[in-house]
């Protein structure tokens, strides 16, 4: 059994000590500090990232609530605006209606006046015609031309009795 050959012991122990010490020095002085640095950096990075994420989340919450507030305000503003616009339209319509009614009344008054004028004119026309007819009738019947004044007064009297 090669394990029990003491002739190899010195060499094995010597190289064991040498290689173990070299490995220990490399790990202790170089490798392990690097790894622990890396791990620490990562932990710090993670911590700071989490803190930043929380900050941003809080900010987002603030923005959201501000947005909702703004939205509610805008909604109520719009409601008010709508109300106002409706009222204005109503008032305008009423005004239009009133002015239209007024104009119609004026128009109808004018029309009435025109009708009255026309009628008096027509009546005046009629009296002239009636005077002519009456004078000619009198000429034919009695062969004398009557006084135009007396004819017109007689016609006027007769017409006045009609109207």
């Amino acid at each position: 059994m090669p394990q029990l050959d003491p002739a190899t012991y010195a060499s094995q122990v010597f190289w064991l000590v040498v290689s173990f010490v070299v490995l220990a020095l490399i790990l202790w002085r170089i490798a392990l500090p690097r790894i622990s640095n890396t791990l620490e950096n990562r932990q710090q990075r993670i911590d700071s990232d989490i803190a930043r994420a929380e900050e941003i989340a809080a900010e987002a919450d603030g923005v959201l609530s501000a947005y909702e507030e703004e939205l509610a305000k805008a909604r109520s503003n719009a409601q008010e605006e709508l109300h106002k616009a409706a009222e204005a339209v109503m008032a305008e319509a009423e005004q239009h209606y009133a002015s239209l009614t007024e104009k119609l009344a004026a128009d109808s008054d004018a029309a009435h006046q025109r009708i009255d004028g026309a009628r008096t004119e027509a009546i005046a026309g009629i009296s002239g015609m009636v005077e002519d007819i009456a004078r000619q009738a009198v000429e034919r019947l009695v062969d004398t031309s009557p006084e135009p004044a007396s004819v017109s007064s007689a016609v006027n009297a007769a017409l006045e009795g009609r109207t």
Partner: protein
Amino acid sequence: MASPLEQFEIKTIIPIEIGGVDISFTNSSLMMAITVLIGGGVVALAASRGAIVPGRFQSIAEMLYEFIAGLIRETIGAEGRRYFPIIFTLFMFILIGNMLGMIPYSFTFTSHIIVTFVMAFTVFIGVTVLGFARHGLHFFSFFIPPGAPLYMWPLLIPIEIISYLSRPISLSVRLFANMLAGHTMLKVIAGFVFALGALAGWLPLLLITALTGLEILIAFLQAYVFAILTCLYIKDALELH
């Protein structure tokens, strides 16, 4: 056919002799050097990038780091941070030595009792010195089981002392015997593959495949056991009971 123990033969590569002592560079020394190269070089290189998001090698280095850090935290506690480098080195040295031994035609330096014994004995001496440095002569109270009645002391104290003194032996023999037995068994079964030939040789071949997986597990486990026992011994020395 070659003996299954032939694989443990120490072969001189570069003969060196200082003061009549043969310290030749052998196949065992070569595997130790490769262990240093892999353990130190790869871990140092893998860790040198220090990336926030680690690559494959860096991940392995960090996993090993956190594995041993966790082991120390659980066994020794916060005080154990000081012993981290030495325990990490022990673990890496044994782990890589064991794993290299799994490569066919290589050599397992942990299968030699002298190597494991020197490591275990160094741990034993270190822990004892630590105990005395920490507690002075009060360290001897370690050998008195707490709560034991006075008349039991003459019986219990020798038992405790023997158990304490046998620590380096059990620690070294456990690793050495596991490596020796595993590799010998693999070699013997590999011999069956050739002996049975093409007809029935595939049966031991299947077995040897399964056993290789088991041996890799043992290679890891023994490194872990060595590290955890070292931690427990340090804890004993620090806290006595």
